[in-house]
């Protein structure tokens, strides 16, 4: 694929531009709260109480984010996680486990009306939602592309993965990308079996993570700033913030569900 060619087509860009996008900027938040916020904000957009929104995540501490359908023991070495102070949380969407360190990960969510991806298959919608980031990374000289079903990858290895959940009239698309990766710690905490690597053409270590930092000198905050300005230039983006009632509702759900063992360990 030529570097001139955009991952997102002109026709698709027009579709994006129709929505009045708002930005919730990065702020360090506890892992469980990040999980709850995704549910609360998706529901708000579904009910028309919030315009379509891009949220850049911040993390207050390291964690493993499990996919909705993953078993804890299959994915995490819990003793190692506890030893290193790595929290175990579970998100509302499917997909695979992510190892997160606050300065190593770039995570973002889109809360959009389903109409944005009307007529697309699930697989097409993953590509559609990630395409602007693929373009933004290519602007920075990162050789990135989308790989079905839900990966952003590069010649240097996998950069990140996306997952989606749907609530009423809204779709949540969130993506975590590796900016920098403490590989020894990741391999200590995550269990990565041979079967998972069976179609990857690699013998070991997590399907070759290819953090963004391997391909650019840019600082993490500068990569994020470029992503946001690229989104703003192409689609329009109004600065916004998390409302007190949204935060309060998310905190309530953390207490009632997301921090509870019957959520995090419901598939032990």
């Amino acid at each position, binding site marked *: 694929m030529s570097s001139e060619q955009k991952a997102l087509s002109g026709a698709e860009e027009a579709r994006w531009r129709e929505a009045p996008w708002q930005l919730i900027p990065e702020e360090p938040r506890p892992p469980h709260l990040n999980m709850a916020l995704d549910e609360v904000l998706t529901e708000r957009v579904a009910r028309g109480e919030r315009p379509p929104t891009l949220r850049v995540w911040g993390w207050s501490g390291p964690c493993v984010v499990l*996919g*909705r*359908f*993953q*078993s804890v*023991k*299959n994915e995490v070495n819990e003793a190692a996680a506890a030893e290193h102070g790595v929290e175990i949380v579970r998100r*509302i*969407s*499917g*997909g*695979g*486990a992510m190892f997160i360190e606050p300065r190593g990960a770039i995570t973002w969510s889109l809360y959009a009306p389903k109409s944005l991806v009307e007529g697309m298959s*699930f*697989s097409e919608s993953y590509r559609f939602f990630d395409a602007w980031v693929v373009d933004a990374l290519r602007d920075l000289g990162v050789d990135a592309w989308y790989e*079905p*079903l*839900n990966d952003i990858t590069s010649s240097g290895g996998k950069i990140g993965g996306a*997952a*989606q*959940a*749907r609530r009423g009239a809204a779709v949540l698309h969130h993506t975590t990308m590796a900016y920098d990766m403490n590989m020894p710690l990741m391999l200590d905490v995550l269990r990565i*079996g041979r*079967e*998972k690597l*069976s*179609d990857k053409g690699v013998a070991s270590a997590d399907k070759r993570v290819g953090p963004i930092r391997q391909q650019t000198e840019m600082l993490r905050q500068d990569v994020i700033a470029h992503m946001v300005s690229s989104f703003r230039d192409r689609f329009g983006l109004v600065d916004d913030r998390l409302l007190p009632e949204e935060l309060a509702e998310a905190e309530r759900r953390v207490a009632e569900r997301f921090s509870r063992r019957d959520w995090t360990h419901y*598939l032990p």
Partner: protein
Amino acid sequence: MGQRGEFKTPGGKLVAVEFDVTDGVLRDVVVTGDFFLYPEEALPMLARGLEGSPASLSEPEFATRVAREIEPGVELLGTSPEGIAVAVMRALQARPEAGGGR
């Protein structure tokens, strides 16, 4: 949990199936993995067709039983009834795990 098998669909996602075999039938079946399923609450449907099935069934028979329980409108991405059946066959071929877990 006695028996466990995994299967990763090439270019897709991993599914793991765990169960006990009691009196020749599958019991306490749990299906997990990094696949996608909409709506999320449909997860028990993936195990329902396997629960109580004779361990002597063939791989296509397991696949048929899994598919039968997935209600219309439910979307499974990255794995399939056939993929789940492969994981079941692998679990049946594996030795029971002592003490459960790994």
